[in-house]
């Protein structure tokens, strides 16, 4: 059994890992999982890229929450991405808090956690780290890279930065840049964390994190993952375990109680500094920026085939952002498929039951 493959793997690659922002990591650790068997020609490898607060546990139970993998609707036996056919890799992003190098990691130079001494990272850096992992696994070329939301940003970046290493790109509910509104919401979250006295400039102890600030950040962000119609349908103005409002500041409304619960459960599994670094990486993301703002030029060298999916009620990364990417790919002459699917569930739709999305991804991967 090759120790590089399987569940709950981790690799530390010695030597400097230079970053787009000018910083350097003295070493690079990547926590990852693989599913399925790598073909003799290594031609069946599919990389799954995760979103902001997700992790490498795409198709196996989360070690802290015990919940099933976060994308078992798409990845698993009998699904479009199937370990019976594909060799599936999912790695915790650079900057993450589930085992890959991030602010919670120990700086080998002084034995202390990096905290805010961790260099600022970008989506390109996350992808460069994944490329180093693929080198380690002996995979020269991916049959596909698939991601939703921030995972989609990584998938698109793969096609631009490593044009010869990706055959197919599936980018779901995503954008080629962060909009002013995207940045604005992230800034609210970061300020909530940094305003928590327990944050202490990032130098908090592991057992005394700025949980209140991180919970508020999550609550604000969670609203952006849903839709107005979805919230109305799920909660309306219904009250939580009471017949009338309390004329106080308890969680009178079900929607308040729900958000508080989302915030509290999030702090159990996520690190506040990681949240700062990863949201910053997303805010800095603009695929066209190094190409004079011309997205078509960013894709000029790509040899990948592309599949983009958006959802009608997603206002975080709305369909117009996907169309902008499609337009650029068409101008670059790259083969692209795109569909906007009907869903009332907002941005989160890509993680929920979406039979048409599965059909599209299955057909795209099979061709």
């Amino acid at each position, binding site marked *: 059994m090759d120790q590089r493959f399987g569940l709950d793997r981790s690799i530390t690659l010695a030597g400097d890992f230079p970053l787009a922002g000018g910083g350097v990591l003295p070493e690079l650790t990547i926590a990852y999982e693989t599913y399925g068997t790598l073909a003799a020609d290594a031609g069946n490898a599919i990389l799954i890229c995760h979103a902001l607060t997700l992790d490498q546990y795409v198709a196996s139970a989360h070690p802290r929450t015990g919940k099933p993998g976060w994308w078992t609707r798409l990845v698993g036996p009998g699904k479009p991405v199937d370990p019976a056919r594909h060799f599936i890799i999912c790695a915790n992003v650079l900057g993450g808090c589930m085992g890959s190098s991030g602010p919670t990691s120990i700086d080998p130079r002084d034995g202390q956690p990096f905290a805010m001494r961790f260099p600022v990272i970008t989506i390109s850096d996350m992808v460069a780290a994944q490329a180093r992992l693929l080198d380690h696994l002996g995979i020269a070329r991916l049959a596909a890279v698939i991601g939703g939301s921030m995972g989609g940003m990584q998938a698109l970046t793969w096609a631009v930065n490593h044009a010869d290493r990706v055959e197919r790109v599936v980018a779901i509910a995503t954008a080629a840049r962060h909009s002013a509104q995207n940045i604005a919401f992230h800034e609210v979250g970061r300020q909530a964390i940094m305003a928590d006295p327990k944050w202490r400039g990032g130098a908090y102890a592991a057992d005394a994190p700025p949980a209140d600030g991180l919970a508020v950040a999550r609550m604000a962000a969670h609203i952006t993952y849903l839709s107005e119609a979805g919230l109305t349908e799920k909660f309306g103005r219904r009250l939580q375990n009471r017949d009338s409002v309390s004329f106080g500041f308890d969680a009178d409304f079900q929607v308040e109680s729900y958000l508080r619960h989302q915030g509290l459960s999030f702090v159990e599994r996520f690190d506040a500094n990681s949240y700062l670094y990863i949201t910053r990486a997303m805010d800095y993301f603009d695929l066209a920026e190094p190409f004079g703002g011309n997205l078509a030029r960013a894709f000029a060298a790509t040899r990948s085939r592309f*599949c983009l999916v958006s959802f009608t009620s997603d206002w975080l990364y709305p369909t117009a952002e996907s169309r902008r990417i*499609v337009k650029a790919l068409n*101008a670059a*002459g790259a083969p*692209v*498929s*795109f*569909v*906007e699917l009907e869903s009332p569930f907002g941005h989160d739709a890509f993680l929920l039951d979406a039979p048409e999305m599965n059909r599209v991804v299955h057909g795209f991967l099979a061709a």
Partner: protein
Amino acid sequence: MTPTPLRSDLAAVAAAVPDGARVLDIGCGDGGLLAWLRDTKGVEGRGIELDAGKVAAAVGRGLAVVQGDADTDLADYPDAAFDVVILSNTLQAMQRPADVLAQLVRIGRRAVVSFPNFGHWRVRLGLLLGGRMPVTRSLPVSWHETPNIHFCTIADFEALTAEMGLTVERAAGLAAGVEQSLWPNLLADTGVFLLRR
């Protein structure tokens, strides 16, 4: 796997596509024509389709299809990006058919356009005798429900191509799928044109 035979009007369109061509099918539906062209002629096909369900079906059969609107999205494609651009049975649903035609011959070296012939005798007779907008085999939906907003006859279409200075390489009228060389504007239910700039 033997490809399913094509509908007769599509067969006439397909006949104009050379082997191995780069093809864009506008209003490609669930990708039936593109899949046939790929499987039997080895074309490199792309499609545009308005309906999300049909796009999903087409991508599900391994085709590169973009959900979009020909009235607005063709401008995004570079000049001469395709050997052949196909607009089958879709022209009459366009907001600005002449603009779409101009885009077709810009992004394709050749364009194949098929459309229901509003000059067909059944249409003329229906209007003449019944006094009602015609509902026929090739125009099956009532006037208030049809997506078809710009009807034309084969003669009208010829006049438009002349007005736009387009070269008609081939023009045919089909009656129930069979080429109708006698009085096509009266006897053909479908017009098929091969155009270039």
